[in-house]
């Protein structure tokens, strides 16, 4: 069966799409299965953001009756709209996971309106009441895992100077930086965290420079918030510093330097979503959670992490799992001396004020602009 067997007119009408898809030899194999499409902004083996999502997709491949199609390095332009349409029209996908933050508006929203029968699930936690009902957005409070990793870092640092290589001074990143320092200060009240912003999500050269610069200034434990932490991890380890990971575990890359890290746990969430979908249940449009809900996790501690650090970190982790523990509570000052959370005020994870974070807390060396 080839395309030639279809009339030209039918092609032009665009109506033959479904027939064409089923006429393809490969497509016929998808027929009974639920086809789930994954779209990544970077490469799926980046030891970072995209790999974390790809690990979630890999978990789906083990489920019976589920077929996964993936496309990597799709920019946040109309290219992603076309990729979504292509997955729907040519692969028969009925559930899509466009995983990059910038895919949501306007691209995914546009497609959700155009294809009301397809379910769209976006990583970012952006869905609001005015958005289409067949669209959803989920995200994890990964600052909880960063907070626990910060405790380990606080105990492990000999100089008391920690380093953070960050992409952009946006709320999500600032929240991770602040949670990390607040964790470190539970272990060592004098700990400081020096932050360098590289300006963009994937800047390997600047990330390497920032890593070297932080180590030159005495930082001996480093972490980061960029799309691909590999550069920071490998360079820091080479220079003899210890690292704490982000997105996925970097233990396979730098086993001797890896203390712990903040990881996504998409491999737990995605099978849950897909099971709901295939059972005909509705996936919540807006879904957020942290350690307790299993959306994020803390990497297993490295062998060099002290007993004291493990105990303290596990203790805080248990409190976070139980709920009720607040990372951000007053009195809290920013690093310019202004009070950002007044005494007696405790901001829980779901507090919308935290979504607008635009400050670095006292103890962080660096500026947001």
């Amino acid at each position, binding site marked *: 069966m080839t*395309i030639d067997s279809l009339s030209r007119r039918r*092609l*032009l*009408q*665009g109506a*033959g*799409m479904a027939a*064409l898809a089923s006429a*393809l030899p*490969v497509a016929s194999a998808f027929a009974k299965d639920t086809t789930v499409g994954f779209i990544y902004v970077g*490469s799926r083996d980046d030891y970072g953001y995209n790999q974390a999502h790809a690990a979630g997709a890999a978990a789906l491949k083990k489920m019976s009756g589920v077929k996964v*199609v*993936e*496309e*990597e*390095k*799709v*920019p*946040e*332009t*109309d*290219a992603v709209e*076309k*990729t979504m*349409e*292509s*997955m729907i*029209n*040519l*692969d028969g996908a009925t559930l899509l996971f466009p995983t990059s*933050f*910038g895919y949501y508006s*306007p691209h995914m929203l546009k497609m959700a309106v155009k294809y009301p029968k397809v379910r769209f699930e976006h990583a*970012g936690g952006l869905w609001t009441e005015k958005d289409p009902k067949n669209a959803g957005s989920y995200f994890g409070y990964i600052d909880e895992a960063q907070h626990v990793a910060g405790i380990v870092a606080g105990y492990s640092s000999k100089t008391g100077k920690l380093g953070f290589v960050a992409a*952009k001074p*946006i*709320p*999500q990143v600032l929240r991770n930086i602040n949670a990390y320092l607040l964790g470190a200060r539970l272990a060592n009240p004098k700990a400081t965290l020096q932050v360098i912003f590289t*300006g*963009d999500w994937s800047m390997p050269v600047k990330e390497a420079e920032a890593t070297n610069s932080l180590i030159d200034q005495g930082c001996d434990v480093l972490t980061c918030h960029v799309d691909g932490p590999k550069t920071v991890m490998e360079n820091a380890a080479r220079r003899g510093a210890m690292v704490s990971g982000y997105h996925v575990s970097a233990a396979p890359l730098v086993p001797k330097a890896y203390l712990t890290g903040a990881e996504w746990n998409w491999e737990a969430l995605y099978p849950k979503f897909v099971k709901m979908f295939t059972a005909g249940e509705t996936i919540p449009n807006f879904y957020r959670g942290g350690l307790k809900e299993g959306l994020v996790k803390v990497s297993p501690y490295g062998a060099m992490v002290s007993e004291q650090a493990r105990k303290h970190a596990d203790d805080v982790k248990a409190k976070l799992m139980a709920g009720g523990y607040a990372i951000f509570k007053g009195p809290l000052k920013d690093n310019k001396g202004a009070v950002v959370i007044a005494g007696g005020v405790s901001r829980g994870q779901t507090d919308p004020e935290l*979504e*607008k974070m635009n400050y670095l807390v006292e103890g962080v060396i660096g500026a947001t*602009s």
Partner: protein
Amino acid sequence: MAFGKNIGGAAEYVVIPALALLGALAAFGIFAALFGKDPIDLYFFMYQGAFGTWFSWQNTLTRAAPLILTALCTALPAQLGMVIIGGEGALLIGGLCATAAALVVQGAPPLLVDVAMAIAGMLAGGLWIALSGALRQFRGVNETISSLLLVYIALAVLNFLVEGPMRDPSSLNKPSTREIGAANMIGAIPGTDVHWGLVFGLVAAALAYVLIFHTTFGFAARIAGGNVRAARIVGLNVGRLVLIVCLLAGAAAGLAGMVEVAAVQGRANANLAVGYGFTGILVSFLARHNPLAIVPVAILLGGINASGGLLQRRLGLPDASVLVLQGMIFVSVLMSETLYGRFRIFARKEA
């Protein structure tokens, strides 16, 4: 470098690039076979993803649209013998200024807003490349280097304004300007999903062709491109030619930026910088800087990019395989340049 004046010459300009393309595709098939993928499947999916269905055609044309405009940014100065590779910068500045214009005249009728955006985008992009032209003309700065470096300045300006003075305070985790408004979006060509940028590109390519090959201005530009001293001796104002051509070239890329904002993104942010300007350089060189030839070449590259998704999904090839194919085509076409005039079959018909 027009299409040949006789049938034999014209055929040469079609047959040799076509053979080069086939050679690159054959090499890519061997490359895929080495990785255990069936080349027949490969070609089938490439055809399927790029041109096999009406949806695929629209996908291809959507991806080709910005490339036609950015390719003109390299092709026009090439007539003067200049190698401008900074179309990306003009695109970014054009998109940024178009957004600013839309935000300033917001509330005006949509057509007026779009016209203001187009003018602002073209003017800004034009001046950006004219800066490279002026640096070369009056200060002897190499235009290739300066236009490339200006890309990074443009990117820094874009990021600074989008994350600072022009930032929409509600764009928390994805710094962006305010939106230009749904009413002001230029939308799709009726009956398709392809935005109007494609039509802008086709019109611009046709105008550029007429300008270069059918006006005295274009003739003068080509003379200056052939031999600057000879052009000066016959009294041509080369400085003026350089500036005007650079202005027009930058305007084309600036228009591409305006289209990205007005038809795709609806606002300016870092998503404008996805490399259309750089792919445009490739398109222009493959088209031998001929404005009309840019159109099919842009569609070809758009098709390759469109089919890349299917190659990833059906054959499990990595995204980089598309870059490998583009590289093979580029090398193959450049090597084929040496073949012109060597085949007697084309020469014989000349008589």
